[in-house]
C-alpha cells in the first residue's frame, strides 16, 4: 500500500492534468488511479508489464517516438499525452489488425460483455476493418474437460503464457512458431491434456477475450466468500451462484493465503455440491435396507440408541472437513453427553505424529510459519510432501521460490518438485530418521549448526550429539540408498542457506515411526536456528481442509480444544463447570483402537461425522469387519459414501457451501465460511445435527442459535482462541492462532521468543532409526507407497465431478519399467496387486519417476480400494498407521480374468 507521502513524491502531468505518484508506479498505473483511461489488452495488474499490445502507447515529452505507458515508470515533471492524432492512428490500425483476425461471434462468446477487446474497439470507435483475415480457421483445443482454447479468438496478448510461466512457475504453454503463424501452444504442440498443464484455470481467469473459456459457463449473479475444502492450504474462494446453485468458483484476491489462486480442484471441483448423488434425507436401515425417514424419526432413534451406550462403549469420529464449531460440538457431545474421551478425527491417520512430534520439540503441534513465508525463504527443504499435487497452491509458491531459492527435495519418487530442485535425495521409503540424523551429524561435524541459537533456545544439545554417533555417512547411505555426497550437500545447503523452511507431509508421518520422523525434522530446524523467524521454520502440510481445526477443537482422546489436556485436574474442573457434566481424566481411545476394541466387543456404538472410515484406514478389510461387529453405527455425511453401508442410521449433512463456520488451515489461520446456497434437500449443518441428538438425549448447553454462538463459547473456554469471533473474522479475514484477546493480531509465526515447552527450550530428539514394520521379501517383493494425486481428493467428493474423473478416471499401480519388463507386464494392462492383508485388480502404469522395486498408488477409487493392502502397524506414540510402506506382489492376471477385465 502506498502512503500519502509516497504518492506525493512525484508530480507529473497527464493530458495537462497535474497528478502525483510514487517512484515505483508506471504511467499507466498513475493514469488509472486518476481515472484517465488508456486502452490496454496485454496489461494485467497481477502480471509483470509486457508492452506487447501497443495500445497503451502515449507520447512523453522528450522521449523518442511513442512509449508504452504500462512499462514506463513515472518521473518528476514528466509530460504525458495520452491522445493525439498519431497515437489515435497507431491504436486504430493496431486494433483493426487484431480485429481482422478475430471471429466476430461476440454474442455467442463466453466473454460477451466481459471482453476487453470489445471494450477497446468501442473506445476507439472502430467502424470498419480494411484488412482481410491473415489466417485460416484453426482447430480448437478441447482436450481439457473444464476449459477450451480457441486460437482463433486469441489475440496473443501473452497473459495466459505469463500466468503459466511467471505466476504458476509451470510453463505448460508458451508461444510457438513465429510471424503471423505465432500461436499459444504447448511443447511439441501436444493438446493441453497430455502436456504439463495442471488444469488450474489461472490462464482462463486472465484471458481478456474468449480464447480461453470455461466450458458451460454461466455468469454468477452472486458471489459468496468461502474457503476451499480440497486440502489444508485454505485457499480463499468466491463461490458464484445463481438460482440456488453453484455455477462457478473464483479465487479470492483478498485471501492472505492464496492471493486469488486456485488449483484444478478448487476452481472446478465444486460440482460435487450440487451432485444429484447428495444425501438429501435421513435414512434408517430396516431389515438391511435403507429407508427414507424424517429428521424426528432419525434423531429420536439415534438419541435413544446412544443412551444405551453411554460411557466407553461409545466412540465418535469427528470430521476434519467440518468446521471448527462442528468439531467442538462433537467433542463436547462425546465428553459431556456420552461421558467418554473416545473422540478422535482423521488426523490420527495423517498428522497426529506432527502434533505429537512438534509438541515434544517445540511445545506446540502446529506449523510454525505462514504460507507466504515460502516466497522469502532462501532454502526450502521439502521431505515427504508431493506439494505441487497434494497442496497445489502452496506447491506453486515452492516452485516459484525455487527460481531464486535453494530447493532440496527428499522423496523416493522423482516428484515434480524434484525437477525444480537443486538437490534431490531419493531415499528408500521409511528411512527418514536415518537420513535426517545423518544430515544432522554432518551439520554438527562440520560446525554448521548455530551455537548461539542452541545456547539460548535449546536444552539438550550434548545429549543429542551423543545420539548422532551411529549415523556415519556409510551407514546412512546403506540404509537410505542416498549417495553420501548428496547427504553432505544437503546438510551444507540447508544449514548454510538462511532463512530455511522445512516442509513435510504424510511421507513423514504415515509410518510406524512417524513421530520420530517429525522430531528428526524439528531437530534440523533447532540445530540451525531455523525456527521462530520469517521464512525459517517447519511447515507440516496438512491434508484435510480443517484437520488442523479438528485437532485444535479437542477432537482427540487426550485433550480438550486448544490442547488442554484431559489428564490435568484444573482442566477437568474447568470443563465440568463450563459444560455442567462430570468429565473423565483418563485418556480415551484413538481412532484405530476403536476398531480393535470393537472386534474385542468393547466398543459397541460409533458416531461417524464426515469420514469414509471403511476405506480410509489401513487394512480396510479388517476395519470393515470391525464395523460389522458394532451394534449401532451412525453416519453423518454429504454423500452415501462407501462407509455408509455399515451404518444403521445415515444423517444428511450440509456441505461447506451451505453453512457458516470456520476452518483452520495448515498455517493455523482461522477463516470464515459463508453460506452460498441453502442446504440441498433436507440436509442440515453438522453442528445442528449433533446438537439435536444431544438435546434429544436431555442434555443442556446445546441450544445454539447459530455457529457464531459456538465460536463465542470456544473463545470463552480456549486461551489460544480467546480473541476470535465471527464478527472479527468477517471484518479482518483469517487470523492465525494463538489469538489471546480481541485486540491480539494473531500469531503468524510460532516460537519467536521462546518455545511452548515447560522449560521454554526446544528439545532435540536423540532418535534411534527403526525400520518399517514390513519390508519387501521373496513373497511380497515390492514396496508400495501411497499418496494423493492432483486431480482427486480422497474418495466421495471428486468422484462426483465428471471433469476430474475425465482427467483421471481410475486407479493405477505405478511401476518402474524394469520391474514391469521383468514381470512381462505391459503399460495399461490389468494386474493383481496383493499384500498379506488383501488384494485388488488395477491397471499397470509404467512410469519413470519410481525406484525399481517400488510401486505407488493413490487411494481415490472405491473400485480399487488401496487400503485393503496397507498395513495397520502403528506409530507407538501417535497410533498412526503405516500407510507409506507395504510389501506387495504384482501379478499378471490369468487369461480368463484378464479377458474379463478388458475394457
Amino acid at each position, binding site marked *: 500500500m502506498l502512503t500519502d507521502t509516497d504518492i506525493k513524491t512525484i508530480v507529473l502531468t497527464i493530458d495537462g492534468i497535474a497528478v502525483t505518484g510514487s517512484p515505483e508506479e508506471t504511467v499507466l498505473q498513475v493514469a488509472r488511479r486518476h481515472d484517465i483511461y488508456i486502452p490496454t489488452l496485454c496489461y494485467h495488474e497481477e502480471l509483470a*508489464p*509486457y*508492452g*506487447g*499490445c*501497443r495500445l497503451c*502507447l502515449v507520447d512523453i515529452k522528450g522521449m523518442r*517516438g*511513442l512509449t*508504452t505507458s504500462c*512499462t*514506463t*515508470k513515472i518521473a518528476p515533471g514528466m509530460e504525458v499525452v495520452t491522445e493525439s492524432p*498519431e497515437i489515435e*492512428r*497507431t*491504436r486504430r*490500425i*493496431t486494433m483493426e*489488425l*487484431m480485429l*481482422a*483476425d478475430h471471429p466476430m461471434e461476440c454474442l455467442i462468446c463466453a466473454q460477451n460483455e466481459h471482453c476487453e477487446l470489445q471494450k477497446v474497439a468501442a473506445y476507439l470507435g472502430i467502424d470498419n476493418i*480494411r*484488412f*482481410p483475415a*491473415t489466417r485460416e480457421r484453426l482447430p480448437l483445443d478441447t482436450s481439457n474437460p473444464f476449459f477450451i482454447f480457441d486460437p482463433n479468438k486469441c*489475440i*496473443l496478448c*501473452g497473459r495466459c503464457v505469463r500466468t503459466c510461466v511467471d505466476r504458476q512457475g509451470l510453463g505448460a504453454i*508458451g*508461444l510457438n*512458431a*513465429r*510471424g*503471423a*503463424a*505465432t500461436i499459444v501452444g504447448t511443447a511439441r504442440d501436444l493438446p493441453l491434456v497430455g502436456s504439463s498443464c495442471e488444469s488450474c484455470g489461472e490462464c482462463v481467469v486472465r484471458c481478456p477475450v474468449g480464447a480461453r473459456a470455461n466450458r458451460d459457463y454461466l455468469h454468477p449473479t452472486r458471489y459468496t466468500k468461502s474457503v476451499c475444502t480440497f486440502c489444508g492450504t485454505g485457499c480463499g474462494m468466491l463461490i458464484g451462484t445463481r438460482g440456488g446453485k453453484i455455477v462457478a468458483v473464483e479465487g479470492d484476491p483478498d485471501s492472505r493465503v492464496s492471493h486469488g489462486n486456485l488449483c484444478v480442484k478448487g476452481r472446478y471441483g465444486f460440482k460435487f455440491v450440487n451432485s444429484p448423488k447428495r444425501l438429501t434425507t435421513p435414512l434408517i436401515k430396516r431389515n438391511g435396507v435403507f429407508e427414507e425417514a424424517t429428521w424426528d424419526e432419525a434423531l429420536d432413534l439415534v438419541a435413544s440408541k446412544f443412551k444405551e451406550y453411554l460411557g466407553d462403549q461409545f466412540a465418535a469420529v469427528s470430521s476434519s472437513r467440518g468446521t471448527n464449531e462442528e468439531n467442538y460440538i462433537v467433542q463436547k457431545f462425546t465428553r459431556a453427553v456420552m461421558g467418554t474421551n473416545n473422540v478422535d478425527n482423521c488426523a490420527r491417520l495423517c498428522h497426529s505424529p506432527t502434533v505429537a512430534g512438534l509438541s515434544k520439540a517445540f511445545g506446540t503441534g502446529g506449523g510454525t510459519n505462514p504460507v507466504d513465508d515460502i516466497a522469502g525463504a532462501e532454502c526450502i527443504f521439502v521431505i515427504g510432501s508431493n506439494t505441487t499435487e497434494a497442496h497445489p497452491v502452496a506447491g506453486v509458491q515452492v516452485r516459484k521460490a525455487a527460481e531464486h531459492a535453494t530447493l532440496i527435495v527428499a522423496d523416493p519418487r522423482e516428484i515434480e518438485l524434484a525437477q525444480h530442485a537443486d538437490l534431490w535425495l531419493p531415499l528408500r521409503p521409511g528411512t527418514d530418521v536415518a537420513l535426517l540424523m545423518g544430515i544432522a551429524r554432518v551439520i554438527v561435524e562440520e560446525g554448521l549448526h548455530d551455537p548461539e541459537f542452541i545456547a539460548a533456545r535449546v536444552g539438550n544439545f550434548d545429549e543429542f550429539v551423543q545420539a548422532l554417533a551411529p549415523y556415519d555417512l556409510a551407514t546412512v547411505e546403506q540404509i537410505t540408498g542416498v549417495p553420501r555426497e548428496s547427504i553432505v550437500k544437503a546438510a551444507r545447503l540447508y544449514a548454510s542457506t538462511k532463512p530455511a523452511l522445512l516442509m513435510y507431509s504424510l511421507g513423514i508421518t504415515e509410518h510406524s515411526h512417524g513421530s520420530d520422523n517429525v522430531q528428526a525434522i524439528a531437530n534440523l530446524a533447532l540445530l540451525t536456528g531455523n525456527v521462530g523467524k520469517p521464512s525459517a521454520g517447519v511447515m507440516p502440510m496438512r491434508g484435510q481442509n480443517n484437520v488442523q481445526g479438528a485437532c485444535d477443537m479437542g477432537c482427540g482422546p487426550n485433550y480438550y480444544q486448544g490442547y488442554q489436556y484431559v489428564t490435568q485436574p484444573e482442566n477437568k474442573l474447568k470443563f465440568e463447570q463450563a459444560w455442567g457434566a462430570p468429565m473423565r481424566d483418563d485418556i480415551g481411545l484413538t481412532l484405530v483402537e476403536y476398531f480393535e476394541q470393537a472386534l474385542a466387543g468393547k466398543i459397541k456404538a460409533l458416531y461417524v461425522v464426515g469420514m469414509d472410515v471403511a476405506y480410509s484406514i489401513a487394512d480396510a478389510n479388517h476395519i470393515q469387519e470391525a464395523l460389522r461387529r458394532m451394534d449401532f453405527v451412525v453416519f453423518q455425511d454429504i454423500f452415501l459414501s462407501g462407509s455408509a453401508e455399515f451404518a444403521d442410521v445415515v444423517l444428511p449433512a450440509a456441505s461447506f457451501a451451505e453453512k457458516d463456520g470456520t476452518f483452520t488451515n495448515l498455517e493455523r489461520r482461522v477463516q470464515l465460511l459463508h453460506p452460498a446456497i441453502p442446504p440441498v434437500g433436507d440436509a442440515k449443518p453438522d453442528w445442528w445435527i449433533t446438537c439435536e441428538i444431544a438435546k434429544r438425549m436431555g442434555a443442556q448447553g446445546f441450544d445454539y442459535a447459530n455457529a457464531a454462538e459456538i465460536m463465542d463459547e470456544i473463545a470463552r473456554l480456549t486461551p489460544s482462541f480467546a480473541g476470535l469471533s465471527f464478527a472479527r473474522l468477517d471484518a479482518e479475514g483469517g487470523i492465525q492462532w494463538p489469538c489471546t484477546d480481541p485486540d491480539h493480531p494473531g500469531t503468524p509465526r510460532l516460537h519467536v521468543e521462546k518455545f511452548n515447552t515447560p522449560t521454554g527450550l526446544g528439545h532435540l530428539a536423540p532418535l534411534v532409526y527403526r525400520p518399517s514394520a514390513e519390508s519387501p521379501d521373496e513373497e511380497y517383493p515390492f514396496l508400495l507407497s501411497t499418496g494423493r494425486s492432483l486431480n482427486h481428493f480422497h474418495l466421495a467428493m471428486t468422484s462426483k465431478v465428471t471433469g476430474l474423473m475425465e482427467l483421471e478416471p481410475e486407479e493405477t499401480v505405478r511401476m518402474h519399467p524394469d520391474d514391469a519388463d521383468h514381470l512381462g507386464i505391459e503399460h495399461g494392462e490389468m494386474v493383481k496387486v496383493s499384500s498379506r492383508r488383501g488384494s485388488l485388480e488395477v491397471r499397470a502404469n509404467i512410469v519413470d519417476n519410481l525406484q525399481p522395486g517400488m510401486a505407488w498408488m493413490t487411494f481415490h477409487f472405491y473400485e480399487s480400494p488401496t487400503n485393503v493392502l496397507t498395513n495397520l502397524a502403528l506409530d507407538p506414540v501417535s497410533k498412526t498407521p503405516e500407510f507409506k510402506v507395504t510389501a506387495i506382489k504384482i501379478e499378471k492376471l490369468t487369461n480368463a480374468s484378464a479377458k474379463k477385465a478388458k475394457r
Partner: protein
Amino acid sequence: MTFTDLQQQARKKWQALKQGDTPIIWIGAATCGLAAGAGEVMEAVRAALEEHHIVATIIPVGCIGPCFLEPLLDIEKPGAPRISYAQLTPEKAVEVVLAYLTQNDPRPDLALGTLGGEMPGIPRLFDHPNLKPQVRIATRNCGLLNPDDIDHYLAAEGYTGLARALTMTPDAVIDEVLASGLRGRGGAGFPTGQKWRFARQATGSPKYLVCNADEGDPGAFMDRSLLESDPHSVLEGMLIAAYAIGATEGYIYIRSEYPLAIERLRGAIAQMEQCRLLGDYILGTDFSFHLQIKEGAGAFVCGEETALIASIEGKRGMPNPRPPFPANAGLWGKPTNINNVETLSNVPAILAKGADWYASHGSGKNKGTKTFSLTGKINWSGLIEVPLGTPLSEVIYTIGGGIVDNGTFKAVQTGGPSGGCLPASLDYLPIEYESLAAAGSIMGSGGLVVLDEKTCVVDLARYFLTFTQSESCGKCPPCRLGTKQMLTILERICAGQGQPEDLDLLEELAFAIKAGSLCGLGQTAPNPVVTTLRYFHDEYDAHVREGRCPAGVCTALIHYLILEDKCTGCQRCKRECPQQCISGEKKNPHTIDQSACIKCGACFEVCKFAAVEVV
C-alpha cells in the same frame, strides 16, 4: 609468462615460419572459400606436394574479402613475396604450385597480385581496383594469418591494445574509445564509449559483456568472416570492453549456422586460457573475465538486444520494452553491455594505435571504417571495408566493379531487410549513419544489395517483407499482423490484383508498424516498402494502374512475345518450352499460345536472336 614473453615467443615463431626454408601455401578457407572449392583445392595441392616430394607448409587462412576471386591460394617462397592466385580449380592450383615450386615459374599469367613485396610482371594485390580504395581496420588480419594460431595474432601486434588498456584506468579506456568516435557497427550507430560508460556507471554485480554475433540479415556475412578469419581481434576487443565496464562474465551469442566460426572461437578461447589471456587474473593483473559461447537457433529478432538476452536466459527470443536498458538491467537482471562483432574488432586497433589515428579515418560524426557485404547485381561481390563517408558510387562502380552484364545501376538496398532501397539518383550519398537515415534507409549491420534495371522494386519489397514477417517474434500486433497485411498487399500487387488504394493502405500500415512496434525489427520492417514507394512510386503505379511490371519480373503482369521480324524460326524456344505452347514451322516466325504460357522465361533465355520480348 608476461605479455612481453608471449609476444616475443610468438614473433620468433612467426619469423621462423616466414624466414625459414620451407615455402608456405596460404589457402583462403573461410566458409566462403570452402563453398567456392577451397577444400578440394587444398586436397589436390596436398596430394601433388606429396607425389612430388615437395616440402611446403599449407596454412588455411580466413577470407581476405573478394568473394568473386575465390578460391584463393597464395604461395610464399623463402625470400620472395607472397603471390596470390585467384579463381582456382584443383587442377589449376596444382599447375601453379608445381610450376612455381619445382620450376620457379610464378606464372604471372595466372597470378593475381603480390603481398609484402614486388615481383616483376605481377601487380601488387592491394592495387587491385577492388581492394585499393579499401581501408582495413576491422579486417586488418583477415586472410593474412592463421586464425587458429594465437601466435600469428600476437606476432601481428595482437593483444597490444589489451596490454595497453590494462595499464590505463577503465575510465581512461572508455575516454579513448569515446575520443575515437567509434559507433556501434550493429546498425544503430550509438557511440560505443558512451554505451560502455552507462554500463560502467550501472550498479549491480556481476556485470556481463555480450558479443552479438547473431548476424541475421540475409546476404550479410561480415561477422562470420571476421570470426572465421581473425577471432582474436574480436576476443581482444571483448577483453578491453570487459575491463572498461567492469564485466567479469561474458557471452558470445552466435548463430549455430556458423559452425566454422564457433569452432574457431572455441579454439581461440582455449589458446587464450593457456596464455592466461582469459580467466582469473588475466596477464597477472586483477582483471578476471570468463567467457562462454551461446549458440542461437537462428532467429533474426535475437539480434535485438533484449531478445538476445531472453534467448541467453533460455527463454523464447522476444524483445522487451526499454527502459530498463540492458546497461542497467540486462542478462539475469544485471548490468549488461552488448556490442557487435565488428565494433569489438575495431577496439584493439583503437587501443593499440590511439583514438586520433582511428578518428583520422571517416568523416564528421562518422569516424573510422565500416565493413559491408557487397552483393547483388555487382561484378565484384565480397566483404569490403571502407572509411565512413565514402560515396555509394565509389563502392558500386569502383570497388564493386560496376553492374553485371554492363547493366544499369537501379538501386541499392542498404541495411539488410530492415533497410531501405535507395535509387541510383542518390549514388552521390556518402555512407554515413545520418545521410542514410535522412534518405529513409539505415546503415544497418552492413548489407549492400545492388540492383539493376531487371529488378522489380515491388517484388524486392515483397521479398524483404516475406523475410521480416516470418522472423517477427509475434509479440506485438503491428509487427506480427501489420507486416503480414503488408506482405499480402505486396503479393496482391505482384500478382496483378493490386488496386490504387492498396498504396494508401501500405502507407497506413507502414506508419502504424513504425510507430507502434515494440522493437527495431518492426520499427524498421516497413523501410523497404516506404523507400520503394518514395523513390519508385511510378513502378507501383505501373503495377496497380496499368497492370504492368516495368522490370519484367512479376509474372502475372508480363507476357512473352516473339517478334516476327527477329524470329528466325530456329525452333530452339519451341524445344525448350516446358508447356509446349510455342508453335511455328521451321524457319518461319513462331508464336506463343498465351493461354498456356506459364511465363517461365525459358524462351527468352535461350533465344539467340533477341526475338523474345517481355512486355
